[in-house]
C-alpha cells in the first residue's frame, strides 16, 4: 500500500485536533461556550452577536470533523494486522469511529442552525442549543468502545514484533475514563459537570484532541517503520 496515503491518514489525526479546536475558537465556543443555566435571551445573544464569524467557525469545524474517518481507517489497517483472520475488534473500531465522526458533526450543524436565523424566537434557539450541546458531549459510548477495542487488540497482539507499542493500549484505556464525565451534563445546569463545566467541556475537548493527535503520531511512526523495513529488503 502507498506509504504517502498512509501518512496522510496519520496526519489527519493532528489535523483533526487543530482544525476542530481552531474552528470552535473562531465560533466563540472556545474558550467559554454558552452555559447550560443561561436564559433564552442570553443564549440567543450568543448566536446573534457576530453571526458570520460564528457560522464560519461551525462550517470549518463540521467539515474538519471528517478527518476522523481516514484516521479510523488507518487504525483499522493496523488493528487487522494484530487480529489476523477474525478481525472483530477491527470492525468494532471501524464502526465506532464512523459513528463518532457523525455524532460530532451533527451538533456543529445544529449550532449553525441556531445562527442561521437569528430572528428566531429565543426559546427555539435555546432548544436547539440544548440539543446541540447534549449531542456533543453525552454520546460517549462509541468513543469508549472504540478506545477499548484498540486497547484489547494491542494486548492480544501475538506478532513477534508488536504492531503498536503497548503503552498506546494503556493510554486508550485512560482516555475511556477521561470521557466518562461526558455522561453527566444530562443532570446538571450548573457546576463543573454541566456541559460548560471544566470536567465536561475542557476535559472532553482536550481528551478528544489529545487522542487524535496521539494516535496520528503513533501511527505515523509505525508507517515510517514499515516503509523503512520494506526498503531494507
Amino acid at each position, binding site marked *: *500500500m502507498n506509504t504517502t496515503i498512509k501518512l496522510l491518514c496519520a496526519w489527519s489525526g493532528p489535523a483533526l485536533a487543530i482544525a476542530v479546536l481552531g474552528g470552535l475558537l473562531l465560533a466563540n465556543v472556545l474558550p467559554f461556550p454558552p452555559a447550560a443555566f443561561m436564559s433564552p435571551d442570553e443564549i440567543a445573544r450568543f448566536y446573534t452577536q457576530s453571526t458570520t464569524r460564528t457560522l464560519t467557525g461551525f462550517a470549518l469545524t463540521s467539515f474538519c470533523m471528517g478527518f476522523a474517518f481516514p484516521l479510523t481507517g488507518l487504525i483499522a*489497517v493496523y488493528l*487487522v*494486522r494484530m487480529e*489476523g*483472520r477474525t478481525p472483530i475488534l477491527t470492525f468494532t473500531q471501524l464502526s465506532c469511529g464512523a459513528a463518532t465522526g457523525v455524532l460530532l458533526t451533527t451538533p456543529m450543524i445544529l449550532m449553525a442552525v441556531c445562527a442561521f436565523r437569528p430572528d428566531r424566537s429565543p426559546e427555539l434557539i435555546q432548544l436547539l442549543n440544548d440539543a446541540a450541546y447534549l449531542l456533543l458531549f453525552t454520546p460517549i459510548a462509541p468513543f469508549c468502545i472504540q478506545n477499548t477495542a484498540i486497547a484489547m487488540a494491542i494486548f492480544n497482539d501475538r*506478532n*513477534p*514484533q*508488536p*504492531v*503498536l*507499542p*503497548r*503503552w*498506546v*493500549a*494503556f*493510554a486508550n*484505556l*485512560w482516555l475511556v*475514563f*477521561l470521557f*466518562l*464525565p461526558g455522561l*453527566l451534563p444530562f*443532570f*446538571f*445546569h450548573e*457546576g*463543573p*459537570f454541566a456541559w460548560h463545566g*471544566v*470536567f465536561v467541556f475542557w*476535559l472532553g475537548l482536550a481528551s478528544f484532541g489529545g487522542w487524535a493527535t496521539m494516535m496520528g503520531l503513533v501511527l505515523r*511512526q*509505525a508507517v*515510517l*517503520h514499515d516503509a*523503512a*523495513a*520494506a526498503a*531494507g*529488503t
Partner: protein
Amino acid sequence: MSRQTPRPEELELPEFLMPYEASPPAPAPPAATAAPDLHQSGLWIFILGDMTLFGAFFAGFALQARSQADVFAGSAETLLLGVGAVNTLILLTSSLFVVVATRAVAADDRPAAARALLATLLCALLFAGLKLTAYGVELSAGYTPTTNLFFTYYFVLTGIHLMHVVVGMALLLVAWRGLRREAGGVSVSFVEGAGIYWHMVDLLWVVLFPLLYIAWLP
C-alpha cells in the same frame, strides 16, 4: 459447484490480511527507529493518568469548597460516616489480600493466589453493596446530585470511583479464573497489573473518604 473452492494461500487477500511476519520480511529494526519498548511499564501511563484525573477532581472540589464552606459542612454531616469508615477498612483489607496474591503468584503458588484473589473479590462486592445501600439511603432522604455542589461532587466522585471498582472486579475475576486453571491460564504480569490497578482504586478511596466525610467534622 463447477468451480473448486480455492485454498487459502491461493486467495488474493489484501496485504494487511497476510500474517505480519509474512508481509515483507522485516529484519530487526535499526535501533534509531525502534519503538520504545515499554511493555508493562505502559500500565503506569494509565495509573498516573487516572490519578491525575482524580487529582483534578479533588482540586476542583477544594477550590469550590472554600467559597461554600457552610453548604459543604452542612451537607457532609448528612453522609453515613460509619458506612464510609467500614468501606475504607474493607478496601484496605482487600489491598492486603492483593499483596498476598501477587506474592503467591511470584512464588508460583497458584492455589494460594487464587484464594487470596477470591477474598479480594468478596471485599470488592461488600464495598459495592454498602456503597449502593448508602446511595439508596441518601437518595430516599432527598439528597440528589443536583441538591447542591457538595452532593454533585459526592455522587460524581464516588460514582466514578465505583465504576473503577467494577472494572477492578472484572480484572480480578479474569485473574482468579485464570489462576484456577492448571497452567498458563493467566500470566504473572496480568495478576500484578490487576493488583496495581486495585491498589490505585484503594488509594483513591483513601483520599476520597477524608475529603468527603472527615474534613468537615467539627
